């Protein structure tokens, strides 16, 4: 799936936002759970403090009672030591319990009762001890017998047990809550971590695939770039070639038009000069000498005729040149029609037109080996190209051997079509291989009629079809013309316009 830049930015931003949100939630939950944990821990500590303070208080009261009992039985002061110690430590211990109990409001009422009972108990104990000290053992014993001390002690015991029970419950609850909070914290962390991991994976996936696409796109651009440079080079070459050709064409045309012009101007001046003896003869009239008459006659009958003949032939030549130029430029401007052409049939038709000339002698003939059945091009141009090249092969034959022509067509690189026309004719000198394609230029012995237009015309047509023509030849051996054409003229013109 291709990832657009907008999608990439949106999805990455979204994933990032989700990731941050999850992180915030995790941090907040952790903070909250940690605070809760701390609170629960405080509660646990408080409950523990209440428990120990309660237990210590009970033990202290029991110590005090034990000391009192011992003293009452023995009246020995040394038994009173636990009682004294308990008495002196009791206020501290009570304050400790009170402080610890401040965290557990539900034990407040019990504590008040306990305070009350403690006060009474301690007063009862103090009363018995004081009575004993004064020697009033009876009063002391009667106080003990009254059962007030025992009842107070029982109440105290049960109240302290109640406080213990409350703190026990509190402790268990706090521990449970702490365990729950820890479990929650763990799960939050695990789930959050998984979520963040998922976001990170998703983000990584989009980044990796986007980067991969970017790399692929860049590679494609580089490839296109290279292709573009190649094409620019091809076009530039073609333009340079075309420009040189135009310059050469202009040069040839001006030169070739100038040559007959020199004749016309020259013979016109000569003509002017010729009229001098005629003029002299006419002016002299009857007094003209025989020499004057002879000169006038010669000028009229020979020189004038010659001059007029040259002027006329030069004008004709200029006219011919202009017509040829027009023909070529018209051919260049003709609208080409790209159509599917049966190349094999076209070659066969062109060969059939000259077949009787080629096979007039024993051993002569035209051999066709066409491996490209079809191409898309302009039929008329192809007809003329093939006709012209085959005509040349016949026209510039070697007089000492029968004509043998071989026409081959092959597929080349990128589907281009290569047509070769090979003959065993008189050949073309190496210095003339470019010249033969120039307008009005010919090569070798001028033993056949021709204007020097055919190959110039053929090259113009081949180039119009997007192809090119080359020649390979050895003087006296034979010549091979190679025409290369694009497989599809329409496609070629589209790419040339692009």
């Amino acid at each position, binding site marked *: 799936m291709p990832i657009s830049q907008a999608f990439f930015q949106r999805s990455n931003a979204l994933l990032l936002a989700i990731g941050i949100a999850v992180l915030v939630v995790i941090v907040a939950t952790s903070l909250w759970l940690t605070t809760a944990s701390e609170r629960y821990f405080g509660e646990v500590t408080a409950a523990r403090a209440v428990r120990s303070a309660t237990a210590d208080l009970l033990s202290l009261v029991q110590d005090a009672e034990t000391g009192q009992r011992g003293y009452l039985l023995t009246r020995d002061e040394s038994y009173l030591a636990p009682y004294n110690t308990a008495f002196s430590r009791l206020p501290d211990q009570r304050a400790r319990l009170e402080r610890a109990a401040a965290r557990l409001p539900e034990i407040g009422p019990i504590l008040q009762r306990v305070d009350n009972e403690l006060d009474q108990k301690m007063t009862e104990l103090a009363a018995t001890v004081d009575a004993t000290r004064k020697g009033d053992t009876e009063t002391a014993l009667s106080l003990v017998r009254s059962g007030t001390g025992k009842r107070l002690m029982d109440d105290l015991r049960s109240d302290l047990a109640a406080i213990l029970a409350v703190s026990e419950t509190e402790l268990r609850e706090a521990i449970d809550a702490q365990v729950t909070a820890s479990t929650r914290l763990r799960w939050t962390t695990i789930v959050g971590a998984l979520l963040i991991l998922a976001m990170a994976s998703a983000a990584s996936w989009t980044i990796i695939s986007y980067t991969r696409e970017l790399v692929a796109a860049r590679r494609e651009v580089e490839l296109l770039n290279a292709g573009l440079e190649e094409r620019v080079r091809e076009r530039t070459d073609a333009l340079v070639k075309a420009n040189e050709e135009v310059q050469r064409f202009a040069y040839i045309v001006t*030169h070739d038009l*100038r040559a007959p012009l020199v004749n016309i101007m020259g013979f016109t*001046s000569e003509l002017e000069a010729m009229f001098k003896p005629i003029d002299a003869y006419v002016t002299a009239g009857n007094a003209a000498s025989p020499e004057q008459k002879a000169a006038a006659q010669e000028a009229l009958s020979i020189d004038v005729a010659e001059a007029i003949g040259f002027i006329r032939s030069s004008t004709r030549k200029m006219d011919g040149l202009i017509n040829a130029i027009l023909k070529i430029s018209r051919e260049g401007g003709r609208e080409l029609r790209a159509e599917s052409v049966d190349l094999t049939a076209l070659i066969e038709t062109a060969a059939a037109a000259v077949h009787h000339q080629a096979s007039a002698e024993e051993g002569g003939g035209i051999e066709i080996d066409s491996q490209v059945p079809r191409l898309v091009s302009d039929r008329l141009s192809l007809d003329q190209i093939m006709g012209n090249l085959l005509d040349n092969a016949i026209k510039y034959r070697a007089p000492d051997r029968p004509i043998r022509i071989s026409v081959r067509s092959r597929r080349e690189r990128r589907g281009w079509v290569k047509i070769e026309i090979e003959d065993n004719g008189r050949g073309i000198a190496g210095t*003339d291989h470019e010249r033969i394609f120039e307008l009005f230029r010919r090569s070798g012995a*001028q033993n056949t009629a021709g204007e020097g237009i055919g190959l110039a015309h053929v090259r113009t047509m081949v180039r119009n079809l997007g192809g090119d023509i080359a020649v390979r030849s050895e003087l006296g051996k034979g010549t091979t013309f190679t025409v290369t054409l694009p497989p599809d003229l329409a496609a070629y013109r589209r790419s040339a316009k692009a």
Partner: protein
Amino acid sequence: MTNGTPVSIIMIEDDEGHARLIEKNIRRAGVSNEIIPFANGTDALNYLFGADGSGAVSAGRQLLILLDLNLPDMGGVDILEKVKANAHTRRSPVVVLTTTDDSREIQRCYDLGANVYITKPVDYDGFAHAIRQLGLFFSVIQVPETP
């Protein structure tokens, strides 16, 4: 020309009209040497170098070559090159007389050993004058016998 030896003027010129005008004006300049005209390069080369192409046929001839560069069958420059490369003909003076006034072409001809390069002017007075000047040149130069 001097010392009575017959110097032949080889005129290689495809345009008959030009050939006639050149001849007329050379004659007007008082030059009466034999003028051998050739309308194409192939025939001229055959005359200069013989059928075997060795140039031996030119041995003992005294030649002056008038050469047009634009011939139907080959470039005049090729002829100049051949003439100046052949042991028998290289000392013969070559006068290039052509319509081409391209500076590179002129340079090329002198590099190859052309002795004079004249552009055919389109106006006839200029043309006639140039040829007559050439006639004067013909009457004073010494042409060596080809070895």
